[in-house]
């Protein structure tokens, strides 16, 4: 295998050299394709397609009008390229299913004998009361912050994935500070149910728009009662009841990400605790 080792070493440097040549011919940083710096006034945001020359330019000029969302990234994620987001949610669902499948026997093998809780105090071993109480106090706040991120995804930085990840970090905190997965089977059942529910809402909304097309934003300017408020173009304070199906999709993704990540964390944490126990035994 000497040939392979030396050859691959040389090849690596060759590839890096080519990449350097390649990047030197790309457009410099800060001067992306097209010329779309200037919005001039509100008129350039109203059905102006004459001097639009790339996809991004179109999103910046028309995203707010077409989807009713102030956050153009959110409108790209949940409207223009919502199909990608569906694929991405599928990937997460896929990994959760895979991990549940792969760890199924490992988690079920032996009945878990955990003596992590101190019988006298009722708190986990190796953890002071401050840590576990603090974690329990922090948890609602983390959840609230996550829900805020999810709900305001279409008007400020955030969205389903970010909010869901923040909420799942709360689960991680809870797992580390105090062991709560004694009821592993129920945890799995509940969490996987809600995960499926989130995804079903997402794809169900996609099917709901199939009278026009799949994942069509059919609520965008329907009625202010159903998230269809028509906003002023250009900078504005932002309204929660705008953007049509975007907030609902964001919520669905938030549910899915929270419960999906929680399942992954619970499984891996559970397995590691179990390994620890078996190691201690032998």
């Amino acid at each position, binding site marked *: 295998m000497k040939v392979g080792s030396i050859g691959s070493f040389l090849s*690596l440097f060759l590839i890096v050299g080519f*990449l350097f040549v390649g990047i030197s011919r790309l457009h410099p940083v800060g001067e992306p394709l097209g010329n779309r710096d200037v919005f001039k006034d509100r008129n350039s945001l109203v059905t102006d397609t004459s001097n639009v020359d790339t996809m991004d330019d179109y999103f910046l000029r028309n995203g707010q009008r077409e989807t009713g969302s102030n956050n153009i990234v959110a409108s790209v994620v949940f409207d223009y390229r919502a199909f990608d987001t569906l694929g991405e949610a599928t990937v997460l669902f896929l990994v959760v299913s895979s991990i549940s499948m792969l760890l199924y026997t490992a988690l079920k093998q032996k009945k878990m004998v955990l003596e992590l809780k101190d019988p006298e105090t009722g708190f986990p071993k190796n953890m002071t009361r401050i840590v576990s109480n603090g974690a329990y106090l922090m948890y609602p706040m983390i959840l609230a912050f996550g829900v805020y991120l999810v709900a305001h995804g279409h008007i400020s930085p955030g969205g389903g994935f970010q909010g869901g990840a923040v909420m799942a970090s709360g689960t991680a905190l809870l797992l580390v500070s105090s062991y709560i997965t004694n009821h592993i089977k129920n945890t799995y059942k509940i969490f996987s149910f809600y995960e499926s529910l989130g995804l079903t809402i997402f794809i169900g909304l996609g099917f709901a728009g199939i009278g026009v097309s799949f994942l069509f934003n059919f609520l965008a300017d329907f009625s202010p009662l159903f998230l269809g408020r028509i906003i002023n173009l250009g900078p504005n*304070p*932002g309204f929660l009841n705008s953007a049509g199906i975007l907030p609902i999709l964001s919520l669905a993704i938030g549910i899915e990400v929270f419960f999906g990540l929680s399942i992954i964390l619970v499984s891996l944490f559970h397995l590691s605790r179990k390994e620890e126990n078996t190691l201690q035994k032998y």
Partner: protein
Amino acid sequence: MGNYFLYVTVVLLIFIGVTALLYKKNLIKIVIALNIVESGLNLFFLTLAYRPGGTAPIFTLAPGLEELKMVLPTPQALILTNIVIGFATSALMLTLAIMTYRNNKTLDIQKLRGVEDHD
């Protein structure tokens, strides 16, 4: 070269990641190397979208339209997707590494090789 330093960072990250992929023997370290490559790619997409003085592409409480400059939105949406995919990949690979360790009691590639003891 000053305008290109972000691209150079991208290339170096990819280089470091691929080198580690080729020469590291530990299954966990390989996952980390893959994550380095992925962060290089994410930085690449962000660099493509960047412009100096640009704000995030969000109109909520943005400055007036006259001086408004925005970075491109699509690559940000894409790297959001890529981050989740990268997370999913590493979670699955770590799980498989755990299972490998449980069955073989080693994480070393050199010790895990051996086609001849398949039967």
